[in-house]
């Protein structure tokens, strides 16, 4: 196979001059995903150390000056992987996705440069307390554990920077709509922008939590805090956060992967409907993370449980539509019969393979997610290692492995160089796939059958039970495969940057056409009803309870540093 041909170059277009128009966008994308990958390299190393610890092998004594304890490492693993790798990669990827989909450079590039600077300064600021062991509060930073104020301010700047990047995207989309009256917004640009708007609404919770409670409290300006109110603000953001991780992968699965498979978008309209439904339903479901919290009435928890089933619906639609789009591709490539088309998919293309394997892992993660969401069933698995089993299949695979797949065309595009050793990249995708299967299966079983608590130094736990061992070994097999996979990923990426084989033609972003040429109905290209609907649902689902919690707020908890 030839790597250059993975994303087909646009026929006839003067690709070179079109590249020149986007040189700043390319640079911006490169900075974002460069920071993302650097963060992930540290995050993943700590993940591997956690895997060893669970088997009873404590490596922290060797890394002591930098990473002193399991819990410090776990905090950094969570922050770098779940918050930094994702947010930086997503903003970088969207910078390319939106501008190429609109075929229009950013309207005000300085806004996006400013966004990057804010995010980067925020990251540097948060790095200090993380490394100095002044913020070993895990990535959920529940008070009254109190981190150094630079941790809270740094995270805030990362979020605010991502908002600013979002504004840059909105202005660009708005400019395109003015320049193209009557035209439907291209799918990729629309879906990416919806994701950023959803993020903007969703992060208000954590912004209020930090700015009105944690930051002034950590600076000593207020003496106490109210842990339940803080948790409620946090989970207002915490659930849509998972959609912020997932929707960029959906953008690629709907809008790009079908093209890479030689197919078309099965249904452009339904794909858009899915994104609007996510805008509507992502936020008013956060109490499903607080089923076991005291102080929140069962009725509200139940309402959020029902809404959570509602937000599962667009994902079920996605499963069908994406599979159908790939089938078009498989059949166009000569696949026959019920399943014969699957074999004809471009399994020799690492970008495609990584993303298709990510979809399969997401199917498992989605099933365990529905279990978590199921109100009283949650009691069986809440805060057990079932939960990390679940989210390593979702954010750790559906998102992360998709982003690896995207990197396999995006890095060649940005550097103008061939992907280094595509066979290694293929091996990377498969080792991640099998690694997460062992890891996820072992953790799910340990959580379900033995109630093994998560976020715990299991190797040293006083209640460690020999019955866990076979499953911990299964997890460890997963960790070894994942270690291999991570090494392969960085080998391929660094190899691509370091070698000298330039591409003859620049790589084009894959953009799938719609299979059905009839235009998308106007109600799927209108913002207002969806946006107002989303705000109304949030007010209904959160308003009364937030009002109660705020009016009964008791700032009684002083800060604790217990690590």
């Amino acid at each position: 196979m030839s790597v250059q041909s993975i994303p087909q170059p646009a026929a006839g277009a003067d690709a070179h001059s079109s590249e020149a128009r986007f040189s700043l966008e390319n640079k911006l994308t490169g900075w974002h995903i460069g920071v993302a990958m650097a963060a992930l390299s540290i995050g993943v190393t700590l993940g591997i150390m956690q895997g060893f610890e669970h088997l009873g092998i404590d490596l922290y004594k060797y890394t002591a000056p930098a990473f002193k304890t399991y819990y410090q490492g776990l905090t950094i693993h969570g922050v770098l992987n779940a918050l930094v790798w994702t947010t930086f990669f997503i903003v970088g990827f969207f910078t390319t996705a939106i501008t190429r989909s609109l075929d229009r450079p950013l309207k005000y590039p300085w806004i996006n440069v400013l966004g990057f600077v804010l995010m980067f300064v925020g990251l540097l600021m948060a790095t200090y307390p993380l490394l100095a062991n002044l913020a070993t509060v895990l990535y959920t930073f529940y008070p009254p554990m109190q981190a150094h104020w630079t941790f809270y301010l740094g995270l805030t700047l990362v979020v605010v920077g991502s908002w600013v990047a979002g504004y840059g995207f909105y202005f660009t989309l708005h400019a395109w709509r003015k320049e193209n009256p009557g035209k439907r917004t291209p799918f990729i640009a629309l879906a990416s922008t919806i994701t950023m708007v959803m993020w903007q609404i969703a992060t208000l919770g954590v912004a209020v939590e930090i700015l009105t409670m944690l930051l002034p409290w950590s600076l000593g300006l207020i003496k106490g805090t109210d842990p339940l109110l803080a948790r409620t603000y946090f989970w207002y953001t915490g659930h849509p956060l998972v959609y912020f991780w997932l929707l960029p992968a959906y953008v690629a699965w709907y809008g790009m992967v079908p093209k890479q498979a030689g197919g078309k978008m099965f249904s452009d309209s339904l794909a858009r409907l899915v994104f609007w439904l996510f805008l509507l339903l992502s936020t008013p479901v956060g109490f499903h993370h607080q089923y076991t919290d005291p102080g929140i009435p069962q009725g509200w928890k139940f309402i959020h449980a029902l809404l959570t089933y509602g937000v599962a619906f667009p994902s079920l639609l996605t499963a069908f539509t994406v599979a159908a789009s790939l089938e078009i591709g498989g059949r166009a490539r000569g696949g026959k019969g019920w399943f014969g088309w699957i074999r004809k998919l471009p399994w020799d293309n690492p970008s495609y393979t990584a993303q298709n394997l990510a979809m399969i892992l997401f199917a498992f993660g989605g099933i365990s997610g529905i279990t978590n969401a199921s109100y009283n069933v949650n009691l069986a698995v809440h805060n057990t290692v079932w939960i990390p089993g679940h989210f390593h299949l979702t954010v750790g695979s559906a998102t992360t492995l998709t982003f690896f797949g995207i990197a396999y065309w995006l890095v060649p595009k940005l550097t103008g160089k061939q992907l280094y050793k595509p066979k290694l990249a293929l091996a990377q995708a498969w080792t991640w796939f099998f690694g997460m299967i062992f890891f996820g299966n072992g953790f799910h079983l340990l959580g379900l059958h033995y109630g093994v608590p998560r976020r715990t130094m299991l190797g040293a736990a006083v209640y460690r039970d020999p019955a866990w061992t076979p499953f911990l070994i299964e997890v460890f097999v997963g960790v070894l495969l994942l270690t291999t996979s991570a090494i392969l990923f960085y080998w391929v990426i660094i190899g691509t940057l370091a070698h000298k084989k330039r591409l003859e033609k620049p790589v084009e972003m894959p953009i799938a056409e719609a299979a059905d040429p009839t235009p998308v109905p106007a109600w799927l290209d209108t913002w207002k009803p969806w946006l107002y609907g989303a705000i109304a649902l949030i007010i209904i689902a959160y308003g009364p309870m937030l009002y109660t919690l705020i009016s009964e707020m008791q700032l009684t908890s002083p800060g604790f540093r217990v690590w």
Partner: protein
Amino acid sequence: MHIDRYEQIWIRISVAVLVIFMIGIVVAGWSLSIQVPGVYGRVDPNTVTEPGSPWAEPGLRELAPGKYEAYILAQIWTFVPGEIRVPAGSEVTFYVTSKDVQHGFRIQDTNLSFMVLPGQISKMTHRFEEPGEYVFVCHEYCGVGHHTMAGKLIVEEAVASNQ
């Protein structure tokens, strides 16, 4: 907007599955009363161990034969009391709060699992039928000693309690 026939079938199946799940949690929650915690009350974590507070002397209290209340205080990195004994067949209502950071409470091999927050009282009831040792663990990160925070509830043969 045109929707493919198979996709229409898929949509119907998806909606049906979700509705069945909804019915499932209603039945389990309200007919079988497998419930999640709700609102019980608040305390000031700074004075929770002072005289007059039920957590001044945490422990087990018998309300009637076979019916108990257990007041448990969570603190870094122990539960007080760390050991509880009840006869088989007892119904125990747990009242748990924290005097410092957030903790969790889960009794293995039961449905009992909830968060323990300073300032809030978590309440849940369980009937212990099978004699044996039930380990309870803290399942929320609470600092460097988190993995040492556990206790046990011993359910004794019912005959023993009649002596």
